[in-house]
Structures are given as C-alpha cells and as structure tokens.
C-alpha cells in the first residue's frame, strides 16, 4: 500500500488560485441549490451547512494540529446553549449573542486544550470525548439550562424586516457564513501558521528546531476549531428553535468527524462537501433501514456512519479529495507527459565573500554557546559524561569521535530534543537545557539532522520557508484576515528563493523535497537552517552522502558563513574535511571529551590516535610519531 497520508496541507502545492476557483464554484453551487431542490432536500441542505461548519473546524484541527477531537459536539452545544440563553432570557440580538457565544466556547476550548495538547494525541481524543459527555450531563442536570427539555422558543433570525423562516431563506442566510468560514480556513492553511503546523506533522523535532512552538500553535488551532463548532451551534439554535442536551450527543461528534474524514482531512472545502454527503446519507438511511429491519428505531443511521468511517480510513484515507486528485492526475497523465523536473547540478558561484552577515550579530570572539558538565545516562549507560564546550561567534568547531561516542546525543541535548541528566547549556545568555528546541531557536541557534528530517509533504521552497518562521510574525488572526499577511508571505518566499540560489538548489525549488537525491536533501536541510539566519548553526554529519565536489562546495559555504560572523559546530565522520575546515576540534570517546584544540594539536594527541586506531595510549605515542601527517587518521 502506498504511503499513507492524512494530510494534504502544508506548502506542498501552490494552489491559491485553484482554491479561489474552487470556493467560487462552491459558492455558485450553493446559491443554485435552493433554487432547484425540493423543500425537504433544502431542509437537509440547511443541516449540512450548519454541521459543515463544525466539521470544517474539526478538519482544521486534524489537518493542522494532527489531533482529533471526539467532542466537537460539546463545543457545538456550548455555542447553541449560550445563544439560546442570551436570546430568550436576556433579549440579546442574534448577532451580539453569537459573538458572546463564540467567545464563551473559545474560552472553554482553551481550558480543555491547555492541559491536553502537550500530550500524545489519544489523550486529547478521549478527553474531548469525555468533555462532550460532561456537557450533556451538566446541561441535563442544570435547571438554569432547562434540564432535559432544554431551552426553547428561540426565534428565527430577522434582519432588515425580513424573517428567515423558510428553509430556502435560512439556507441562503447561511451560505455567506459558510463561505467566509471557508475563506478564513483556507487562509489559515496557506499561512505561516499552516505551513509551520504542516511541518510539525512531517517532523516535529525539525520544525521545533526552526523555532516553531508546536504546543502554542496547536492550542490556537484547537480553539479556532471550537469557534467553528460554536458558530454552527448558534445557527443550529435559531434554526431548530430548541436546544437540549442532545446537542452534545456523542453520535453528533462522530457525524462531524465523518464529514471531515469523508471530504478529506485538512482540505477546507472537503468538510462542506462531506457534510452534504453525510447529511444525505443520514436522511436516506433513516428512511431505508426501518424498511429493511422491521421495528428498527433510534439512531439507526449510525450503522452507515461506522462502516463508511472505517472503509474510508482503510481504502481512501484522503477522502473524496484524494479521489478527486487521483482522477485529475489520471486525466492529466493521459493528456501528455508532464515536464520532467530538472535535476541539473547547478553550481554555486565560486564566490568567497562573507555570507549572511547581518546587523546585531555578536562580534566574532564573544562566547555564544556555553556547555558545562553535560551528562546523559540511559539506564546504566552513560552516553555523555561531563561534556564541556564553549563556542565563540565566528568560529567553526568540529565534534569528532568514533561511532557511539555520544556526539549526536550531545547535539540533541544542546539543541533540545533530549533532556540532559545533568549539566547546563547556555545559548546567548539563555539557559536552554531541558527546554524544547524552539527555545534554542529563539536564542538564535538551529541545527540539521544526521538522519534527515525533511518535511516530506513540502516542496524544497516550502521547506526553506518554514525556516523563516521566526523571521516573520503574522499570527493566526492576521493570517485568517489575509491582507496584512500577504506582503510578508511574498517577502518570506523571496528570501527563501534567494537562499536556494545560493546553495545551488534554485532549479529544484518547486519540486517535492523528498524527490531529491539524498545529498541534495542534506543541502535543503542546511538551506532551511540558514533561513533562520542563526548566530549558531549545528550540523550533524553534513558531508554524509555528498559527492566530492559537493563537499568542497559545502566547505566553501561554511567558510563564507564563518566570515559573515556565524558560529558553526559540526559533527562529522570525514575527519580530513573537518581538520581542514575547523578552527577547533573536540574529540569524544565513550561520552568523554578526550581532546580539545586546534586541528594540529588534536591530530597529534596520543589519546585521539589511540581512540581512532584502537591502540593503547603508550603505543599511540609511537604511532603518532611514526605516522604524523594527515594520513595518520582514518
């Protein structure tokens, strides 16, 4: 089976225009629908629009945050109840009430999300499931909320002396709301936030190393998704005129989930398409099943929901959206072969000048990174033992040592993913040990990975644009409203393209990063890290998988970055390349730093020779003397 992906978001396809066309098409369809459909079908359509909004929020949550809520109906109910109470008891206008209802729901979501979104996904799922149950329990226990009979007498909305009381009128009233909801959702998916969360879904550690605060963004998306449910809830309250504890019913949450999954998780319009399909199915099954099974009563349509949900996940995890793209790709393939991507090895210009120098960079020679007594024990094994290192701005420090010496573990502790057992790491005055990688990034440092952590659903350009995360500022709200964010997006793209040219990746910018050969994926990771314009760059085996020419290009690039004032720490197996490049070399063996000095000092250090040749230190003196020179090391 092909690689499964639920997520079709992220900067993988530059489809802004396509989206706009899609939404415009949907708008036309939605306006035509009540003109051609029968009243009972329009009634189904009204519910599809209402529920589609809630499903859209859920789709954003799943697509962007990679988490699922099984209690979307709980937020839907909070919106509906708040609206009902405000309108019937306190004579609020419908619009004012709905603003308050949405605010109340978002606060509730924040309280639920804060403790849970740090944890692995199943906790949010089960806790939201419980949340939905609780909302129903509390509502039916509360006399203020009308106990089991709920709140009734909510009037149909009236605007400009027009009463929206027929299904056609109400449908047309909802169409603009849904379209605005779609547009906002699409803007969020396409934004800096959407890009960052798409990256998190591909590789959480890499995205965080680029400064993405996963937890914060996930909370924001969770609250946003609850807001969608809440808007749906207010529309529901006015349409039905009654809100009772059934609004928080678990089967309703399942229905929202099915709509999102059927349409294609993370695709904005998918949720609305899914909503129409599911509502149609719901209506059909409620009529059909009692005919097939005599005496069947209650929520019999669930049988179809369950089967459909399972079948989609097994056979069509991308939902209807996947079906649609597959069909389109087949048609395109028949129309003619696409233009083959250029794999040309574009040469970087043999320029030797300083690179990425910028205002406010620490002056060369000032201590930037200070590592003191860094220690990691895994059970009884001490992987790194009391590691000390100071890195100054504008120098290249290499970390070498045999396999298993603890180099990568040391890297992981410095940059955040691994919590040290003991010791401190200070980056530009900020203590970062045991903190998440995005703290390290905020302090002005980032890293690449030994086992590549490319964002697989993104293009080369998209990968690098994530690196600009901290160099851009637009938040969720700005992104949703698009206007202020648009100029920044263009600037981010321009600087990302510039960087790609610099690394000779310009021709590959719009290819999927995973389609590139291994060595060039490494360069993409380096470009992505450079996009942050860090003061300190940690490179974990940057030379591995590169050809001889590529290695020379990379070494030249690193020298130019150093000239621009950047500090670089690299772990590398190619000892020759390291000794030629680094200002200082630290050698690790069995987790202990056995040497630190200039390449020349290290080359002749008996302990280092012993570590590399596997001889005892006494004999190593002889070896070092007999075999001095570059060839002395493997």
């Amino acid at each position: 089976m092909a690689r499964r992906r639920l997520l079709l978001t992220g900067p993988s396809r530059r489809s802004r225009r396509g989206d706009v066309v899609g939404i415009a098409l949907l708008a036309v369809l939605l306006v035509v629908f009540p003109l051609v459909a029968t009243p009972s079908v329009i009634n189904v359509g009204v519910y599809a629009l209402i529920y589609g909004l809630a499903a859209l929020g859920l789709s954003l949550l799943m697509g962007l945050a990679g988490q699922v809520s099984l209690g979307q109906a709980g937020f839907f109910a909070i919106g509906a109840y708040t609206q009902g109470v405000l309108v019937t008891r306190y004579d609020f206008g419908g619009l004012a009430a709905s603003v308050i209802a949405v605010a109340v729901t978002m606060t509730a979501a924040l309280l639920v999300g804060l403790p849970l979104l740090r944890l692995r996904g199943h906790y949010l799922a089960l806790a939201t499931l419980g949340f939905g149950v609780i909302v129903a329990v509390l509502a039916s226990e509360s006399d203020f909320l009308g106990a089991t009979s709920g709140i009734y007498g909510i009037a149909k909305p009236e605007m400009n002396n027009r009463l929206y009381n027929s299904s056609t009128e109400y449908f047309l009233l909802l169409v603009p709301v849904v379209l605005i909801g779609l547009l906002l959702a699409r803007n969020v998916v396409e934004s800096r936030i959407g890009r960052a969360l798409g990256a998190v879904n591909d590789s959480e550690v890499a995205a965080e190393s680029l400064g993405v605060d996963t937890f914060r963004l996930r909370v924001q998306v969770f609250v946003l998704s609850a807001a969608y449910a809440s808007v749906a809830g207010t529309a529901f309250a006015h349409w039905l005129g009654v809100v009772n504890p059934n609004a928080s019913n678990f089967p309703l949450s399942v229905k929202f989930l099915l709509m999102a999954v059927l349409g294609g998780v993370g695709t904005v319009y998918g949720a609305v398409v899914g909503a129409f399909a599911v509502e149609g199915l719901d209506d059909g099954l409620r009529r059909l099943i009692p005919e097939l099974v005599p005496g069947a009563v209650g929520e019999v349509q669930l049988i179809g929901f369950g089967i459909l949900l399972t079948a989609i996940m097994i056979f069509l995890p991308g939902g209807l959206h996947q079906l649609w793209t597959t069909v389109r790709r087949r048609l395109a393939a028949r129309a003619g072969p696409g233009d083959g991507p250029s794999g040309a090895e574009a040469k970087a210009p043999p320029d030797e000048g300083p690179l990425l120098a910028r205002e406010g960079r620490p002056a060369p020679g000032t201590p930037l990174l200070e590592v003191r007594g860094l220690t990691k024990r895994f059970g009884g094994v001490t992987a790194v033992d009391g590691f000390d290192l100071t890195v100054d701005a504008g120098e290249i420090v290499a970390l070498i040592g045999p396999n298993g010496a603890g180099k990568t573990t040391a890297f992981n502790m410095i940059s955040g993913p691994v919590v040290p057992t003991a010791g401190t790491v200070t980056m530009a005055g900020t203590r970062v040990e045991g903190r998440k990688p995005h703290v390290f990034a905020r302090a002005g440092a980032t890293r690449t990975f030994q086992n590549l952590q490319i964002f697989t659903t993104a293009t080369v350009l998209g990968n690098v644009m994530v690196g600009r995360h901290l160099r851009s500022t637009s938040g969720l709200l700005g992104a949703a409203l698009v206007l202020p964010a648009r100029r920044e997006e263009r600037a981010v793209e321009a600087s990302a393209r510039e960087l790609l040219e610099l690394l000779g990746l310009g021709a590959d910018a719009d290819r999927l990063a995973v389609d590139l050969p291994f060595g060039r994926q490494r360069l993409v990771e380096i470009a992505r890290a450079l996009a942050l314009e860090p003061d300190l760059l940690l490179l974990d085996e940057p030379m591995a998988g590169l050809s001889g020419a590529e290695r020379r290009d990379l070494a030249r690039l690193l020298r130019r970055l150093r000239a621009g004032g950047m500090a670089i720490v690299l772990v590398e197996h190619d000892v020759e390349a390291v000794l030629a490049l680094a200002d200082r070399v630290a050698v690790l063996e069995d987790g202990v730093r056995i040497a630190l000095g200039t390449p020349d000092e290290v080359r002749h250090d008996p302990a280092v020779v012993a570590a590399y040749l596997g001889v005892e230190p006494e004999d190593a003196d002889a070896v070092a003397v007999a075999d001095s020179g570059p060839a002395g090391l493997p």
Partner: protein
Amino acid sequence: MTDLLQLLFAGLSQGAVYALIAIGFVAIFTVSGVINLAQGEFAALAGLVAISAAGGGMLLPAAAVLAVSTVAIVAVVMERLVIFPVRGMTTLVSLILTLGVSTGLKALMLLIYGPDAKGLEPLFPGAFDLAGVSIRYQELLILAVAGVVALAVYWFYEKTLAGKSLRACAEQPVAARLVGISLSRASLLSFLIAGCVGAIGGVLASPIYFTGWESGLTLGLKGFVAATLGGLVSVRGAVLGGLLLGVLENLTAGYISTGLRDAVAFFLLIVVLVARPSGIFGRHAEARV
C-alpha cells in the same frame, strides 16, 4: 460509617468492571500503540448477547460463555479486517478506525437488540447484610471473577512465553521481530485478550448496571480513564486505576450528587494528565519525542 462502607464496597465492585475493560486497553495499546475505542462496545455486546441467550432459555453460565466467545470472535475479526491491513498506523488513523468500528457495533446492537437497556438476571440473586452493609451476591461474584481474571492476565504476561513475547513486542518491536516473534500474531493475540476481558466485564456488570446499545460509550471512557490512571502500559496499574475510579464515583454520587457520577471520570482524567501523565501508579514518564 455504614454509608461509607456501603459506598466503598459498591465502588470496588463497579471499579472491578472498569478494571477489566482497562486491561483490554492496556493489552492492545502496549502491542500496537492503538487506543481501541471499541473496547467499551466489547463489554456492551457481551452483556446483550448473554441477556438474549438467557432470555431464550439458555443456562446462565452457558450464556456467559457464548457471550465471551462471540465477543472474542468479533475482536479477532476486527483486528484482521480493520487493524492489520493498515500500515503506517498513526494515532489519528487508529482513533478514527476504531471509532468507526465502535460506531458500527453500536448501531448493530441497536438494530438487533433494540433501543432499551436491560439487565441480565444474576447467577446468585439476593443479598446479605454484613455489619450493616448490604452486599449483593452478584457484587461478590464480580470481585471474585475480576480478581481471578486479572491474576490470570498478570500471570500470562509474566510467566508464559507467549505473554513475554507480547511484552517484547511492546518494548522493542524490531528486536522482537528479529528473534522470531510475529508482530502480526502478537497484535491478534492482544485483541483476543482485550475482547475476552472486556466481554467478561460486560457480562458481570449487566445484572447490576444494565446493558444497552449505548452502554459501551461510558464503559469505554471509564475503562480508558482507569488505564490512564495506571499509565496505560501496566496491567496492575489498570486494575488499581479501575478500583480507584469506581470508589471515587460512588463516593461522589453518595456524598455530592448522583448526577455528577459520570463527571468524575472526566475530571480525574484531566487532573491526572496535568499532574502526572505517566499515571499515578506508573513508574516512568512517557516523555517521548
């Protein structure tokens, strides 16, 4: 004082049911990282099968065996049809898949057994008084059977080769495969165990707590909370978590409000996840990147 004892006892017997369902969560989660949202439905289905068989004149023990075997088959078929074919199972995918199965099972129960909740007749009806505490025989039966089943599961994991191989799959799937343990068989076995313990819990609970097509929702949620209290990876933790939840629920219902009984699980879940994500009986943190 008598009230307290009465509530404690009722809480323990109800908690024993949660414990059995929690063991099912743990069995599956440790092997494949899947949270089986159909776990509660296993219990509900078992209860309904037993009720319907007993209603048809079958002897109670036979009806119980029939119920447990039916659910075991359902669990195994579910694993082969729904879990096994999916590669690259993420948390999100597994949740949606098992939710689909859970919803399908719910609807099936509704279609076959109708919308009304029913209770199985107890094997030993009646009750006796002990120090003023009224104790139903069925409650004793629940505690006894749950205790035996929990011990058996514990013994299986600790002492038998098959049990040890399941633990190996949970801890080091690659290494387990290298030494010849089949992950596919381990996953199947874990569903079989989960089906059996869940079904036993469902049959035991039915005479007191009644069973309807929707019972699985709260049973499953509470079983999950119980498993989470124990860190989600420990059979012992799941049992203790179940008993604790049962007791707390009954104390809340007795001293605060009956209506809030179902809210206890949710609040307990939040509190535990905030304070100690590794579970209050868990030993090591679940901090993975």
